[in-house]
């Protein structure tokens, strides 16, 4: 079947199998491999992307379901001049990543958390990221990074292409 999906601001049309997962569409059809797959039970959140303003786990969405949607992945966050999104910058400043495998999903989920709650407490960040697993950081610096990113204001809870993001 054919799908038309706007990925990181660029519209594209592809022929896909009806059962193709959005995660595999992004990775293999679009070649956007920042989105990782860490489980097969919607548990780990490594594949989190933003679809029409919602942060979703792309392993649990069919590419067909995203037909007509706007999808933002990690690759679509930084400005064209290379300027990092506030959440990206905060993850670096606070050492919110180690092996980096959960990072793409964690950053996208954090944007969702901040869209929903621009100034969360530690506890609220932890609850907001409960569906995103990390084995390296013990979450300590991820929580700090999200709190730091919040200081950047509303931009921290937005993706480019002026999408409004809600959790």
């Amino acid at each position: 079947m054919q799908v038309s999906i706007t990925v990181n601001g660029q519209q594209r049309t592809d022929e896909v199998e009806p059962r193709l997962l959005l995660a595999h569409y992004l990775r293999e059809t679009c070649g956007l491999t920042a989105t990782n797959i860490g489980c097969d039970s919607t548990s780990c959140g490594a594949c989190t992307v933003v679809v029409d303003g919602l942060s979703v786990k792309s392993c649990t969405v069919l590419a067909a379901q995203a037909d007509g949607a706007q999808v933002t992945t990690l690759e679509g966050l930084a400005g064209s001049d290379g300027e990092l999104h506030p959440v990206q910058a905060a993850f670096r400043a606070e050492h919110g990543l180690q092996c980096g495998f959960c990072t793409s999903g964690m950053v996208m989920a954090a944007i969702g958390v901040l869209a929903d709650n621009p100034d969360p407490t530690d506890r609220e960040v932890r609850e907001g990221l409960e569906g995103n697993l990390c084995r390296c950081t013990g979450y300590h610096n991820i929580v700090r990074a999200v709190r730091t990113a919040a200081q950047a204001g509303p931009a921290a809870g937005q993706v480019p292409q002026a999408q409004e993001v809600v959790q």
Partner: protein
Amino acid sequence: MSILGTRVVRTEDPLFLTRGAVYTDDLTDERLTGALHVTFVRSQVAHGRILSVDTSAALEAPGVVAVVTATDLTDLAPIPAGFPFVDKAVIRPWLASDVVRFVGELIAVVLTEDRYQGEDAAEMVVVDIDPLPAVVGTQAAARDEVLLFPDVGTNVYAAFGEPAPEDFFAGCEVVVSQRIVNQRVAPVPLETRAAAAVWGEDGRVTIWCSNQGAQAAKMEIASWLGLDPSLVHLITPAVGGGFGAKIGADPEFALIAQVAKIVGRPVRWSESRSENLVGMLHGRAQDQVVTIGGRRDGTVEAYSLVVDQDAGAYPRLGVVLPTLTMLMAGGVYAFAKVHAQARVLGTNTTSIGAYRGAGRPEATAAVERAVDLFAAELGMDPADVRRKNVIPAFDSPHTTSMGATYDTGNYAAALDKALEAAGYADLRAEQARRREAGDVRQLGIGLSVYVEITGAGGEAGAASENATVEVHPDGTATVLTGTSPHGQGHATAWAMIASDQLGIPLEKITVLHGDTDLIPRGGGTMGSRSLQQGGAAVHQAAGELVELAKKRAAEKLEANPEDLVVDQGLAGLAVRGTPGVGITFAELAADEQLLVQTTFSANGPTFPFGAHVVVVEVDVESGKTEVVRLIAVDDAGTILNPLLADGQRHGGFAQGVAQALLEEVLYDSDGNPTTSTLADYPFISATELPSFELVEMATPTPMNPLGAKGIGEAGTIGSTPATQNAVIDAVAHLGVRHIDMPTTPMRVFRAIQQAQQGGN
């Protein structure tokens, strides 16, 4: 001012944060164009005799190019146990055709044009297995009623040490004994295993795989496949976590190479999480008996640890983990007598390997639990019992009765720092108040004081590592290392070390690893060895490069080499006392290649230590635990980059709390895994942890010029028993004296009920 010891953000992060690093499954290398996808058919029976493997339907399925079974691999010798003390009859087939010995054992390899076709076709391979009784757990294994290898005559793969003398505890006023389960856990790096392989026309195979040390993985694969090592080129792409489970090579990696040869095309594989949870090595899995005896004043006189290590079906690193447990059995204590003994038993389960700490957390968990049991029996404060028994501060080597030579240590100081930061007296007062009031949420305060061994192994098994430093004519530098970062930040850390000596800024230094053609030798990253050996090797290489540069510059500048000093601002050499006269390393490199390759050999392993205090609230009506504080002193000697060191600590704490409270790999009595997805395996999440309170302490080691000890595993080693002890402490006043890990709400609830009914 030196960059060493300062908080430097990682140079590798911008890639991770903008495009993502290239992990094995992300590879777009042109040599892999047209690669077939591998899907493994694995046993769904724990123990049984294979009657037939029918691939006919699968071969007809869309996209299927080949289905490889045992009959296609008859020219490969089976995988040997790999340990000289294990019976030679304990061998592992590449693909099972006779007997299967665990759920997840490999039976067939399906090769398809695309990934989804592979999943479809794998389900069409019909495997008929006649089940045999399964051996689950070390107690069943020790009975030897059902044997994994009947020819061997026993399930005991190895035994270490002797029983304690009968009079070992004679004269002790108090003796306490406890059976303790250090449960099986799953390492769960977020990136599952993945590999790709292609054969060149020159007869060499290039293998990409997710691992913790390319050079060792290469040698293992070459040995298994009967290839001259020069024919194997192994490349380590970005690796999404390892935690010990990616040490060496797995049989799957070698099979990928072998099937690529059979089909004459490149192949690639990336496993699903449910495959990973049965196929990748598990960790821990020890059944222990501790016995501790001493005087009523709190002095421990004798301590015994007896271990039954579950090895899983086939011997992997788990076979030798108890030797580390035994070595570290006595921990930080000056017990007059320490005894340790272990057996290693085969069971019809996934094999056991290294997991963060690998044998040492099991030692610490046992002794820290034992000390608490002893303190509880005497009615003494566990902090007082620890103070009374720790080895006094030492700054010259201290050899224990188990034969470990600790480098430097000050355990009482670590404990006191942790207690002070925690506000221990206030916590005990609050605990007393809640006990008095009969609060539903009781406070538990758990302690641990630990010492562990790091940097015990390395390149070629010795405590050594190599490094190459080259300065280029454009002023940039390249560092080649035999370590294998997968989250630890070596690209930043090794660049800091080189920059500190050469004055070349971090952004001009590239650190490369994990390509066996480029870096033929290397010990990889494991056992908390990287900084103390690999970092020290970079330090040595950069230092030697300066000396080489001095010799060359002396001629050019018409100066004595002894009068030349590194000018950091210049990134070169200047003549002492003669401002304005100097030459850059880049200029010297333009004349002649400026490169040093060297091997650093440490004086020996190092013994980081520390003390943790964990504070929990336990709901005595539901049994649910909340960790409210975790205070940690982790002394890893001199710190190179506190940002990275603290990150290692944080991750370690989380994995320790996870084992203490939540995580456990479970099998039913038939050997069926019941925790084989992340929906079933309770991987710790952000909501189940507090932010951590870190206390600094740094006692340098003389074992390497950086003064550094290992920090990768320490956090796990300290936090696991501190958390377990805290949970038990919270309900101790109700009569509970021990709860095995994981201290789930059900276990806590039952322990309270049993204690109130008069037994525990």
